[in-house]
């Protein structure tokens, strides 16, 4: 067991090499292209961090005894910095998730006996004969 785990981590960085082990039905399903996500989901990090930056300028003005929208350059600058930070954070999150997904998929490929495709039965094979008489 322990050997398997270390094997998996060591092989995590290995991408598709080609061969029969690549063709597991689970992996085929996981690799189908995802639909286009809505804008809010795609730009959640830039919007959030940009919003935090923008809002922090209000707090800054509050502590400096200024009207909330004074010095709009500060709001724009901090919002811009937040937006860019959100992009980089998003990239980091996505790359972490991608690495995790690649590790799991490769594990499935390496140990197909642990992931058997279940036998599909029809209801006609399961249901017993029944007549609608009471």
């Amino acid at each position: 067991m322990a050997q398997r785990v270390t094997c998996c981590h060591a092989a995590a960085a290995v991408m598709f090499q080609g061969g029969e082990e690549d063709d597991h039905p689970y992996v085929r399903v996981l690799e189908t292209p995802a639909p286009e996500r809505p804008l809010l989901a795609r730009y959640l990090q830039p919007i959030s961090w940009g919003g935090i930056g923008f809002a922090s300028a209000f707090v800054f003005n509050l502590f400096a005894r200024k009207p909330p929208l004074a010095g709009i350059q500060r709001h724009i600058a901090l919002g811009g910095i937040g937006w860019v930070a959100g992009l980089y954070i998003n990239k980091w999150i996505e790359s972490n998730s991608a690495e995790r997904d690649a590790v799991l998929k490769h594990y499935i490929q390496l140990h197909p006996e642990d992931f058997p495709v279940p036998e599909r039965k029809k209801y006609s094979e399961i249901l017993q004969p029944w007549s609608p008489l009471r």
Partner: protein
Amino acid sequence: MALHCLAAVARCCRVQPLPLSSAAAGLPAVQAALISGKTMRGGPKSWIKEPWPYKERPYRGLKSFFDTTRSRWDENTRLIVVEGPPAAGKEVVARALAEEFEMQYMPAASGDLVYINDYGYDLRQLNDKLPHKLKLLQIDDFLKNPYDSRMGSFQINWFEFKLSQYIDALAHLMNTGQGVVMNKCVLSDFVYMEAMCNAGFVSRGVRSVYREIAQQCMPFLQRPHLVVYLDIPVAEVQKRIKARARPNEVGSPALTDQFLQSLEATYKESWLKSISEHSEVLTYDVSQETIVEHMVDDIEKLNFEQYGFQTDKMSDWNRKSDDEWDACRTQYTNYKDHLMHNMLVPRFDVPELMAEQEDMKVFYELYHETAPGQKYRFGFNPSMGDSVLFKLGDGGKYRDTTKY
């Protein structure tokens, strides 16, 4: 905490050539010259350097690499304080000294200085609508009814103004190199509190809170170079008060003989004794006549640099390196609010100094929200016509002697 600036990054001290006397005493590089007056010199003084516009530009951080504090100092960069009982002629003497030595004159605390805001609005107009305990008081109110329970908080507010003014005096001195002559200062304000407590005008609780506040604030202030004390006996004080006939002073229940004697006693036994350990003290008997020329002569003979490290004399002024002076200047110029916050002492045991919640709400709404120019800092009030959308920075007038 408040003096975080003094834990400065280690930078090498700049070395200047030493005059002989300072080198003998082992002192850092300071010019060893005496105060010079206009009359003896025969003309106006020449300034070493353009003054730093500390009211418009902040002084902090990397600017200390380009602008040394002591590069503007000369023999007239001194802090002089004129003290004495009421009606001693302090203002006349202080103004005359300021003109003679070409120093800045700082007036005594008055309602105009404390209560007129940066836009010129007089906050005393709000007094009709303010709750009784939170009305804005002046010395006239003290003279009219000294037994009023609000006198304790009045005295502490006056202390706050004087502290603010003293910090401004030090900032002016360090940023421009011009000396300052003050008419009474925060360091001697406690004599009034002692006299008021001895006369029964305020309670001992108030005095205890005041002492604690003063104790917290004093360590961060440089003591003056020179104190000029104008001495007149109590009978003479009463005579002069009658003579100058200011409407509130004549017949005031506050200016009793006992109060004035207590004032004089505290001045001499407590204040002058303690301040003479650091500052030069010149005492003049001005009951007969006030001759400012004699005072000028005496002051011009004083040598402030003769003291070394063995005594406490001038220790606030002769022991700092260039970097420490720059840090000090940053503190007084830009982080004045840190020094003013030393006044926030958590004493809630004196009922005269506490106000009711409902009254505080009314006060807050009137004083901080609706009064013209009070809601935001100077330069940022759209209601007063400032355009604010693209304005960064401090507003162009980030300090004055009444607000912090």
